[in-house]
């Protein structure tokens, strides 16, 4: 027998000779009166340590194998680029890579390859239905209706929602002048879309032929370059239906309630020709919802001002009056400061022309009801009138004196120079210390500039009539300009321009 066998035999013998751990009596007691089994406490995460270590190991391995290979082992690169002087030698330039020959024709080389026929593509907005149709032709400026009609005649597998309006656009500094027709062979309408900073960037930094300006009321698809091109307006039918369902949309606009500005020319910048009643008032109103960006924020502003759902049924009138968010905010603040009661939305639409009167009342610290405001018809009380007359007469006399002495030998208000060029244009930039008087005479079709001959002459020379920009280099000189109705005003942000209507100026 091997010693190991002896050992194991001895050990087994010891195990066999062991007394039992529990006697028979103890076992009987256990059986007859069993103690509650103390089950081992179940661990909530029995293998937590294992899995933690496993995850750690795996992550370490992954990190090890995913480390970027430096390429050159340090022992090879260390000390290698050292010259005889012991100074580090500059890295030798890489051998020149073979450059592609300029004569080589590539797919991008438009000179070598004949241009492929361009098929206009349209990015569908988020609200567009799934079924879409690709347009067959690019819409032409001024013939939007026919273009869109021809597009609808094309049989395609999918169909795009019909454009509400289509036409041409001209990019100005901060907005787009839009020309479009309501009906085929109808008069061309003029519209203006003020762009936000983001939208301007989108157009200025465009990389493709098409840019989409999306707002709550719809999308404006622009095909063209940074200056001009064609546009299509696709309404957001979901949002339109939602508003119309609550009678806040365009459905309430009756025929004859919407007036649009027409134009005779569509090239370059359109010149307003005169007002005309829209034959598609509801679509026109919805287009104004878009141009003035009437969205939920707009509604929230009105709600904060205390207007109820019932009041919002006249929301279309604000759109019709082309009152945007900023203008509405300003107007509401004025009204809150002057009026003791809350005017209706319809009244706000009309009060936008009375901002000057409201400002004066606010400056005087007067408060009144809307009815009183209407009854006074913006006329001051007797005492105010007297003081106003005195003040006005004093100012007028001083102004006349100055005018007579320095500016002109003519009577005050006499037209010294008439600039015919930009008068019909849609937009005027004024720089400098201007005093501008806006005439509300609809017959006035020209921009009339009052001021000394020198100033007016200098302004004529400096101004670019084709871009409708009046530049007054002599900022200390004050000139007065009359503008036709419907003209769009923009000025540089931060530049203060006093707009005043002096009595007796004309």
């Amino acid at each position: 027998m091997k010693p190991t066998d002896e050992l194991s035999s001895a050990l087994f013998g010891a195990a066999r000779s062991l007394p039992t751990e529990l006697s028979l009596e103890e076992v009987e007691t256990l059986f007859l009166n069993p103690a509650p089994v103390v089950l081992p406490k179940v661990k909530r995460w029995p293998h937590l340590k294992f899995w933690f270590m496993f995850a750690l190991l795996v992550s370490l391995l992954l990190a090890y194998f995913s480390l970027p290979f430096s390429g050159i082992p340090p022992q090879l690169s260390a000390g290698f680029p050292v010259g005889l002087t012991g100074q580090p030698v500059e890295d030798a330039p890489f051998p020149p890579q073979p450059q592609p020959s300029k004569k080589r024709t590539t797919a991008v080389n438009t000179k070598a390859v004949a241009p492929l026929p361009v098929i206009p593509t349209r990015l569908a907005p988020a609200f567009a239905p799934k079924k879409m149709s690709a347009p067959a032709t690019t819409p032409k400026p001024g013939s939007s209706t026919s273009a869109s009609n021809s597009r609808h005649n094309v049989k395609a597998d999918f169909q795009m929602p019909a454009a509400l309006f289509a036409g041409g656009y001209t990019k100005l500094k901060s907005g787009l002048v839009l020309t479009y027709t309501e009906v085929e062979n109808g008069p061309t309408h003029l519209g203006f879309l003020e762009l936000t900073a983001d939208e301007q960037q989108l157009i200025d930094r465009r990389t493709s032929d098409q840019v989409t300006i999306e707002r709550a009321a719809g999308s404006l698809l622009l095909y063209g370059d940074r200056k001009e091109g064609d546009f299509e307006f696709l309404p957001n039918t979901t949002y339109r239906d939602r508003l119309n369902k609550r009678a806040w949309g365009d459905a309430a606009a009756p025929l004859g309630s919407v007036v649009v500005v027409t134009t005779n020319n569509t090239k370059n910048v359109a010149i307003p020709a005169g007002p005309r009643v829209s034959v598609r008032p509801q679509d026109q109103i919805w287009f104004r919802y878009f141009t003035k960006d009437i969205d939920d924020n707009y509604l929230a502003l009105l709600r904060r001002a205390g207007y109820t759902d019932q009041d919002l049924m006249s929301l279309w009138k604000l759109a019709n009056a082309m009152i945007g968010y900023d203008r509405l905010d300003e107007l509401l603040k004025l009204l809150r400061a002057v009026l003791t009661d809350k005017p209706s939305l319809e009244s706000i639409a009309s009060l936008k022309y009375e901002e000057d009167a409201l400002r004066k009342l606010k400056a005087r610290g007067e408060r009144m009801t809307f009815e009183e405001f209407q009854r006074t018809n913006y006329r001051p009380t007797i005492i105010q009138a007297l003081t106003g007359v005195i003040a006005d007469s004093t100012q007028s006399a001083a102004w006349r004196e100055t005018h007579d002495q320095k500016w002109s030998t003519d009577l005050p208000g006499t037209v010294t120079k008439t600039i015919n060029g930009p008068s019909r244009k849609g937009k005027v930039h004024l720089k400098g210390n201007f005093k501008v008087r806006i005439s509300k005479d609809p017959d006035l079709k020209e921009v009339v500039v009052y001021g000394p001959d020198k100033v007016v002459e200098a302004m004529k020379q400096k101004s670019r009539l084709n871009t409708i920009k009046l530049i007054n280099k002599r900022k200390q000189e004050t000139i007065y300009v009359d503008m036709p109705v419907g003209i769009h005003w923009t000025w540089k942000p931060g530049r203060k321009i006093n707009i005043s209507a002096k009595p007796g100026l004309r």
Partner: protein
Amino acid sequence: MPAPTDKQRAFLTAYADCHDDLLRYCTTVAFGKCDVRDLVQDILLTAFKHFDNIEEGKLLHYLLRAARNRAISLGRGRGCKTEELQERSLERLRAKGASPDTLLDVEALYHALQRLPEKQRNAVVLFEINGLSLREIAGIQRCSEASVKMKLSRGRKRLRELLTERPRHLSQVLLTAKTILL
């Protein structure tokens, strides 16, 4: 303690013949894994529940099988530490009159048995400690006698190796780990 019923009395009578074998087996398989008291109580209650279905003379087989399975189950959820359980078991044996030398030998044997594969350990314990025949072991393990013989042979061989094996030094363990990793 309530008086036992007839069925309980009959069960205890039948159990008395199996007591020594079961306890030795339980002490071996439960060493360091679970408490023998819990194991025995659990087995007896289960056996009593199925006592009517157990064939006459097969109670020991049933109890041993149950002890094996139950020890594995209890061993999975270790409520106590191994050292604590081992100490508790040895303390009970010491209280029953086991000499310290015997306990030292037995502890070494139990440690070596714990390192055997489960089937081999079972065969070795039943044959060497409990003194069961090959046929009885084959009946308990529900396998052939030849299979039991093979397990016994391999178990003994492995046990000899384990008993004569020198304890590993830490440097050897590290060297082995390094070799595996590299």
